[in-house]
């Protein structure tokens, strides 16, 4: 069969054609919304029209078979209309209240998990990991799955003082807004990379490689027409590997994950913040990373039992102080939590007012 004629520079299809009639009619004229359950909410328009949303979890990696099943449900109850959220949940857009209970029943029967709305834990923003990335120091999807199995009640039913956003990055490149999450897991390398001098000659540009190092640990090695890496300066970021594949950094026994906490992206009450390092290293333990899961669950539980209503994790910590956070969680404070990269000036304490 002949190929259809390709077209270039057409951009995405216009979004308006995908919207259900109730949105088309009330576009930009929504009045308020109410969260009905952790998996459902209703938006009410100025006209009085209502739109119900049923949110379900997704593993982000979806087979076409599952997408078709999602389509089946949308066709049965939503006139075929649905959307995805920025955190990879699926949202079924129900225009007729009569369909609300039936769609929930149908989704439950098919094994879809409803939840993720409001003050709990919603889907996890994460990266490709071993499934599909060259620079992965862990498998993001595996950690997400293990973690969410354990924290599932916070998705489906149990509530927290505010929402808690989790993220997993499989290396410090951090595709996605991982660095501003309530709790994020960041995979790290911990060993100085090894340079394959023979391949370096043919594959890498010397100035680019030297310039790629944020700590100036790389210098030329003229005799070998390659580079050397100063182990006293290298912080294992892997940027040299990104620009020059013959500099190998992965190491199965030394790659692991760090845990950072207290970030947020919205401006509610307090400004957006970065997540900060509290646990510097946990070994990779596939397939279920038990220590990582336990650490995250522990932090969630300490937050849940201490924070005030509407306080995000980072806001709670700022109120009580980081020294109190380490005391309450029992997390050991280590040298890695003291910045010796670029932010020391901003992060050291400059007053004698702290808590014991």
């Amino acid at each position, binding site marked *: 069969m002949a190929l259809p004629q390709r077209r270039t520079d057409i951009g995405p299809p216009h979004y308006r054609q995908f919207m259900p009639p109730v949105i088309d009619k009330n576009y930009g004229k929504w009045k308020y919304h109410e969260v009905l359950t952790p998996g459902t909410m209703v938006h009410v328009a100025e006209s009085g029209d209502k739109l119900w949303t049923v949110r379900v979890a997704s593993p982000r990696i979806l087979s076409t078979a599952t997408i078709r099943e999602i389509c089946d449900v949308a066709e049965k109850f939503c006139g075929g209309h649905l959307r995805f959220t920025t955190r990879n949940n699926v949202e079924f857009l129900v225009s007729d209240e009569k369909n609300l209970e039936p769609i929930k029943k149908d989704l439950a029967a098919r094994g879809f998990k409803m939840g993720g709305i409001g003050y709990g834990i919603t889907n996890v923003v994460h990266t490709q990991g071993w499934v599909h990335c060259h620079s992965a120091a862990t498998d993001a999807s595996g950690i997400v799955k293990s973690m969410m199995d354990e924290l599932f009640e916070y998705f489906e039913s149990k509530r927290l003082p505010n929402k808690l956003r989790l993220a997993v990055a499989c290396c410090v490149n951090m595709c996605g807004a991982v660095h501003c999450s309530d709790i994020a897991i960041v995979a790290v390398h911990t060993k100085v990379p090894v340079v394959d001098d023979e391949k370096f000659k043919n594959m890498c*540009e010397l100035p*680019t490689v030297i310039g790629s190092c944020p700590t100036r640990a790389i210098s030329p090695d003229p005799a070998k027409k390659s580079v050397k890496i100063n182990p006293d300066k290298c912080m294992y970021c892997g940027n040299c590997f990104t620009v020059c594949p013959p500099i190998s950094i992965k190491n199965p026994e030394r790659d692991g994950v760090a845990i950072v906490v207290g970030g947020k992206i919205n401006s509610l009450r307090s400004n957006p913040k970065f997540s900060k390092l509290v646990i510097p290293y946990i070994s990779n333990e596939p397939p279920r990373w038990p220590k990582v899961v336990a650490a995250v669950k522990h932090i969630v539980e300490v937050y849940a039992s201490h924070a005030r209503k509407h306080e995000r994790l980072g806001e709670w910590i700022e109120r009580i102080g980081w020294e109190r956070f380490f005391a309450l969680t029992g997390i050991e404070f280590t040298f890695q939590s003291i910045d010796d990269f670029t932010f020391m000036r901003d992060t050291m304490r400059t007053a004698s007012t702290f808590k014991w």
Partner: protein
Amino acid sequence: METAELQDKIFAFCEAAKGKKKLKEKDIIKGVSAEQNVPPDDVKKAMRAMIDVGRLMYSYGGGASSVEIPSEEYLREKGLIK
């Protein structure tokens, strides 16, 4: 300058950098424009026309994009040579 002649100059510019420096679009536009005293927009148009027919190609490596002379493998895959 005729487009075909300009394209030859662009090709020569890319050939000279081959294996030495990865060229961004802008490097070619600025470089050839200065070298040949041709407006940058003309260079851009001529270069784009070359990319569209596979005389040049976009490449990616070391975390950034560049413009290169295509390999035979690429041309074969695109059906531009047998």
